[in-house]
């Protein structure tokens, strides 16, 4: 999916460049900063430059020209594109209550260009918190930075680490998981980072019922992809075996139904965990069995340790795995066509005889 998005991006950029070559920004090397930027940097390149805010704290006003030039906006924007309200003769004194108040008052400048992304954030749990008065709720610059913004598609680990600023506990568990380790230690681009499951901007509260019911679809995006799974020697049938089973059917039918779910529906996370997912192969069969048994017992009071054998552990029935289920299935797959074809033939023969006349 990422490949397609990248390809679409390349095509789109190519197309825009083709139809509107005049709009292509002039090539600005780090040594050739535009005049207006240079004018600002005449003061702001000073590492000591700062301002005192109303709460008595000091806000540093230094901007590193090299860092800005290396950012994605370095070749596109000038200072006043974002900092539009400043006259030539500023500062006029401490106008903001705190550093945080400044960040919150300023972040909406991003929507001038990124309007669609901005509107998605308005539906997120983070915006709900911000609106309720929680200043710590993240705004654009908290995750993306300000003068140092990098392409978030290339720096997935960086974006995830920005989540860790507030969600440290969760991030530590994630970083120790099979997914987190691969991203953090090996720079693996296949494994999910925070935003791949929680989305980027329209982040929903993960404790909600709808998020739980939809969660298998998140796992299936990768674990139902045969080519991706083959790369890691993982079965891609895990999704369909779950969806074909009792709980998978319940989750699918409850999701998006007008009737609110009357019970907890078991999804992938109940046996595999959420942020602390580890490879079932590494955990071993015994540990997985214990995990499944514990998951069953959470809802099925009195489930014995033998009960999880009712679940085929993502295996398709075969002579080796679940031979009884396999043989019952085989019997009916032969018996039903045999009976039905036989009956249809007799009906046809009967009609044939009638057509001959008695």
């Amino acid at each position, binding site marked *: 999916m990422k490949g397609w998005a990248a390809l679409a991006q390349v095509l789109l950029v190519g197309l825009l460049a083709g139809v509107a070559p005049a709009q292509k920004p002039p090539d600005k090397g780090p040594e050739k900063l535009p005049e207006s930027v240079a004018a600002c940097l005449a003061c702001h390149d000073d590492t000591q430059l700062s301002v005192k805010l109303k709460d008595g704290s000091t806000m540093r006003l230094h901007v590193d020209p090299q860092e800005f030039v290396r950012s994605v906006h370095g070749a596109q924007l000038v200072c006043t594109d974002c900092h539009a309200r400043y006259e030539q003769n500023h500062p006029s004194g401490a106008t903001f209550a705190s550093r945080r108040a400044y960040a919150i008052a300023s972040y909406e400048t991003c929507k001038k260009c990124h309007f669609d992304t901005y509107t998605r954030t308005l539906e997120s749990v983070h915006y709900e918190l911000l609106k309720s008065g929680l200043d710590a709720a993240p705004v654009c610059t908290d995750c993306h930075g300000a003068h140092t913004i990098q392409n978030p598609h290339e720096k997935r680990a960086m974006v995830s680490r920005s989540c860790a600023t507030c969600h440290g506990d969760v991030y530590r568990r994630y970083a120790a998981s099979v997914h987190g380790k691969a991203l953090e230690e090996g720079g693996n681009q296949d494994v999910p980072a925070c935003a791949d499951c929680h989305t980027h901007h329209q982040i929903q509260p993960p404790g909600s019922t709808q998020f739980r019911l939809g969660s298998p679809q998140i796992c299936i995006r990768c674990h139902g992809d045969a080519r991706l799974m083959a790369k890691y020697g993982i079965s891609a049938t895990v999704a369909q075996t779950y969806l074909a089973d009792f709980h998978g059917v319940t989750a699918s039918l409850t999701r998006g139904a007008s*009737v609110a779910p009357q019970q907890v529906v078991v999804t992938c996370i109940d046996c595999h965990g959420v942020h602390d997912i580890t490879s079932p192969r590494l955990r071993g069969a015994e540990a997985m069995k214990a995990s499944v048994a514990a998951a069953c017992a959470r809802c099925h009071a009195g489930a014995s340790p033998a009960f999880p054998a009712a679940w085929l552990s993502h295996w398709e029935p075969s002579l080796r795995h679940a031979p009884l289920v396999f043989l019952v299935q085989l019997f009916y797959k032969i*018996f039903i066509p045999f009976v039905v074809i036989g009956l249809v033939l007799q009906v046809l023969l009967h009609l044939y005889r009638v057509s001959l006349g008695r």
Partner: protein
Amino acid sequence: MRGPDAGEYVVRFSFWARFQHASVILLFGVLLLTGMPQKWPYVEASRWVIEHLGGVVAVRWLHRAAGIAFSLLLVAHLAVAIGGALAGRTKPSMLLSVKDFRDAVDFLRYCLGWAEAPPRFGRYDYRQKFEYWGLVFGGVVMALTGFVLFFPITVSRLLPAELIPAAKVMHSYEALLAFLIILVWHLFAVLLSPEVFPLDTSIFTGKIRKDRLRHEHPLEYDELSGRE
């Protein structure tokens, strides 16, 4: 086909038999309506049915309730049939005999034109008997596997837990088989078959025209006439 008996009727089915048939129509219908969407949950029509019946939890309870009623009817049927036969009040006319298998072969020979006349049937012909025993055995399979799925925790304490997914597969396929047999065999025999078209009403009214009885169940007709 019209003979001296045209217009005259004889009683063919008791109230108990008609009540059971009507109950099976109702219960089988409810079980199919609530069961098939669970067998094919990813078909759009299934989602529609489940939505309109109040969600999957409601559908499953409706299915279990109809299943319990069907099981009770099955037990009552077997008790009355076996009890009646043992007490000598009813004849066990549904029991299979060698003649039924011979009749099946003879009827096919007749259909192919290798025999002049169809075999002479008694109170129930071989098709009706086969279907009856299919319903009884199928009903027992559905009830047993249904209760395994209803009480999986209890079952897994007493028996290997692999029986539960096996019961699920069996319940699902046996239901499909029953549905297909009713569709191609029973509905043909009672609706479209040239002898009864457009509908064999005897199981609803309890009566059958004498000329039809003579034609379709000659041995029973002879027996009744002989007794009269």
